[in-house]
Structures are given as structure tokens and as C-alpha cells.
């Protein structure tokens, strides 16, 4: 199986021969992921702002996002095809829908977690409301928001793989190719799968580092002083 031939698990010749295709798929995958998460973030942020201003809006907004999230990916892709055709745009709409619930929840949870005493002190000191929101509330919510972005990004990377079904490009294309060919040629499937996994894991790790980087105050241990 590990001998290097078309029958083996990975036929490295195929990999060599198709490096430009691999590169192209990588770019596609990144583009789709990046744009979907970015758009999803903007929409989720707007939803979060609305929820913070009108508490009652959160329930319905979360329900909509949750509803979208619970639609099986295949179904959502399939449903959009007759409307927006095959390709990038279709996938993007579906992917943005999947990010909404995670991002909305994390943004709102992060902002809610800011201690009331800190808000009161900030107001009492003379922060204007908007400035305080950005410098205090959002800043303290940043770790939670980054956490949400982490889950959203990793989820989308996985879903882009499935989206190849509707012609969006990305690593899933290799998998589709491999599955539709005669059995025995597993290389593109393995390559597609492995690259997807690698990208997801890498981004996950990167976000973990980012999360730590935006939380410098939690890194230092809570050591007591010498005297009270």
C-alpha cells in the first residue's frame, strides 16, 4: 500500500504533477473561508449590536441564526443551487449562514461577561458611551470574540470541503474527483482530506495563539503583594 504507485495510499507522483492545481485549490479554499467568515462577522456584529440595544431582539435573532445552523450542509447547498446556481456565491451564502450563530453567541456572551463594576467605574470616570464601548466593553470581549472566530473559521474550512459539491472549488474538489473515479485511486481523496485537516488544525492553532495574545492580563499569575 505504501509502495509508490497509483494503487497506493498516496501516489507522490500525482502530487508532484498537480502542485499547481493544489496551489490553486488552496487559494480558493482560503478565499472562500476568509470571505465567508468576514461577512458573517460583520452581520453577526450588527445582530449583536441590535441585541445589546434591544434585549428582546436577541431571542428572535438567535433563533434565526440557530435555525440556519441546524440545516444540514448538504441540504442548504442543494437548496441554494436552483436559486444562485453552482459556484462560489452559492457556497458563500450557505457558509455565511453557518457562521452567524457561533459568532453572534460569542460576541454577545463576551460583552455580557464584562463586569458591571468596570462599566460603572468607566462611566463614572467620564468615558463617553461610545468610547467606553470600544475601549472597555469590546476590548474585554475580544478573547471571546476571537474564540468565536476560531470555531467559525474551523467549521467553515470543513464545510468548504463539502461545498465542492456545488462547484465552489477548494480541497473538496480533489475528494469529489477521487470519489467519482474508479476505485483504487485514492490519492486525490487522501490529499484533499489531509490538506483540509491540516488547514483547519493550523488555523485553530493560530487562533489559539491570537486569543492568548489579546489576553495579556490573564497570562500573569495572580500573585499576592508583599503587604495588604
Amino acid at each position, binding site marked *: 500500500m505504501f509502495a509508490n504507485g497509483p494503487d497506493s495510499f498516496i501516489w507522490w507522483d500525482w502530487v508532484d504533477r498537480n502542485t499547481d492545481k493544489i496551489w490553486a485549490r488552496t487559494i480558493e479554499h482560503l478565499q472562500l473561508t476568509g470571505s465567508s467568515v468576514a461577512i458573517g462577522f460583520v452581520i453577526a456584529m450588527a445582530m449583536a449590536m441590535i441585541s445589546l440595544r434591544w434585549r428582546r431582539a436577541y431571542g428572535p435573532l438567535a433563533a434565526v441564526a440557530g435555525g440556519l445552523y441546524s440545516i*444540514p450542509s448538504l441540504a*442548504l447547498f442543494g437548496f441554494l443551487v436552483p436559486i444562485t446556481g453552482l459556484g462560489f456565491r452559492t457556497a458563500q451564502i450557505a457558509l455565511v449562514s453557518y457562521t452567524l450563530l457561533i459568532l453572534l453567541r460569542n460576541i454577545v456572551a463576551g460583552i455580557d461577561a464584562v463586569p458591571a463594576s468596570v462599566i460603572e467605574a468607566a462611566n463614572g470616570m467620564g468615558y463617553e458611551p461610545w468610547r467606553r464601548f470600544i475601549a472597555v466593553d469590546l476590548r474585554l470581549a475580544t478573547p471571546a470574540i476571537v474564540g468565536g472566530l476560531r470555531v467559525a473559521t474551523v467549521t467553515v474550512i470543513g*464545510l468548504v470541503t463539502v461545498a465542492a459539491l*456545488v462547484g465552489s472549488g477548494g480541497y473538496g474538489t480533489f475528494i469529489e474527483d477521487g470519489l467519482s473515479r474508479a476505485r483504487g485511486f485514492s490519492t486525490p481523496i487522501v490529499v484533499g482530506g489531509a490538506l483540509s485537516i491540516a488547514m*483547519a488544525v493550523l488555523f485553530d492553532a493560530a487562533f489559539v495563539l491570537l486569543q492568548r495574545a489579546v489576553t495579556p492580563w490573564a497570562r500573569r499569575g495572580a500573585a499576592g503583594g508583599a503587604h495588604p
Partner: protein
Amino acid sequence: MIQDALDFLTDSRSWWGRNGLVNLTWNHVRLSGAAVLAAVLVAIPPAVYLGHIRRGGIVAVGLVNLSRALPTFAVIAFVFPLSLQYGFGLGFWPTFVALFLLALPPIFVNAYTGVSEIGRDVVDAARAMGMREHEVLRRVELPAAMPLLVTGIRVSAVQVVATTTLGALVGFRCLGTPILQAIATRNDGQLIVAALLVAALSLLTEAVFGVLGSRLTPWARNRAVETKARVQHAA
């Protein structure tokens, strides 16, 4: 579209036979259940143990969170050739492996957190009453951790049920199959019916585990108070 849906629903071939909805749903439930059960068996003992000794959590949780990053379909794709190669067949095993990995994190993390988060004072009280370690675990920590544990299993199960549809892509006959078929034949009605079925199944799973949860944990209303009371009764 609605016409297509109705056609699909009224056609008896849709329901029965190898590709009938009944069989597909059964397969779907079978695989989901197997994956969740496997995850429960594999994750809960070490999670509960680590939670009890309150050690090693960070490492374990980190590893488990790593598996959260694995794209399910990619894992299916990756295991697929191996499964073929070693005679494990087409659709079931790759999907099972991927779903198992998907199911692990919520169950593990919730079990660990549920056990380890129980106040030191409650555990100390139990020990002070003369309970031995395994009794503390069995009579105090596990019951108190139940709500969180069941929530973990519930979240996991709902996710798995929804994701099992991907198995159709590698030939596993489940509720994803009619969806794939509907995409190919541009039959929106069939697609909606199948998608609604999956959604219904998800909701059903959520409901079933919700009920199961409250049955197993009738005291979950006022956890802190009841946990202490349990400690007294258990000793």
C-alpha cells in the same frame, strides 16, 4: 416545488425498500447512535477520572479540542481509502470514525468540567463523613455532574445526527442520500422533504435527551443546595 414534494411523499417507493426513507432513517439513527455510544464509552471514564483527581485537565481538554478542529468530511475522505483497502467497506466505517471524533469533544469536556467543578467544600464534606474515594465519586460527584454530562451528550448527539448526512457522499445509505439525489435531479421537493426529515430527527434527538436529562436529574433545579443535601443522604 411543492408538487415535487407531494409526489415524493406519496410515492410508496420513497418509503420502502433499500432506498426507502424508512430504511434510510434507520441507518441514519443506527450510525449516529453507534458513534455517540462509542464516544460515551471512550470519553466518559477518563474524563470523570481526571475530573475527580482534578489533574491533567488542560492537556486532555486541549487534545480533545484539537479533534474539534477536524473537518468531518475531510476525515471521512481520509479514512475512506483506508477503509476500502482493508476491506471495511464503503460508507459506514469512514463516516463512523469521523462522527466518533466529532462526538468526543462535547462529551469529554462536559464530563470533565462537570466533575471537576464541584465545589471543594462539598467533596471535602463527603470525605470528612468517611466516604472512600470511589464512593465520593459515585455518590457525590457523578450525580452532581449529571446535568452537565447529559447536556454534553445531548449537544453531541444533535450534532452527530445532523452531520451523518455527509455519509451519503461516500455511499452510506442515510438521509443524506435523497438529498444528494435531489441535487442531481434538481428535485427541490424531494430535497426539502429530506432536509426537513433530518431537521425533525435533530429536534427529536434534542427532545429525547432533554427529557432523559430531566428524568435523571430531578434535583437539577437548585444544584448547589441539592448537592449538599445529597452528600448528607448518601453518607
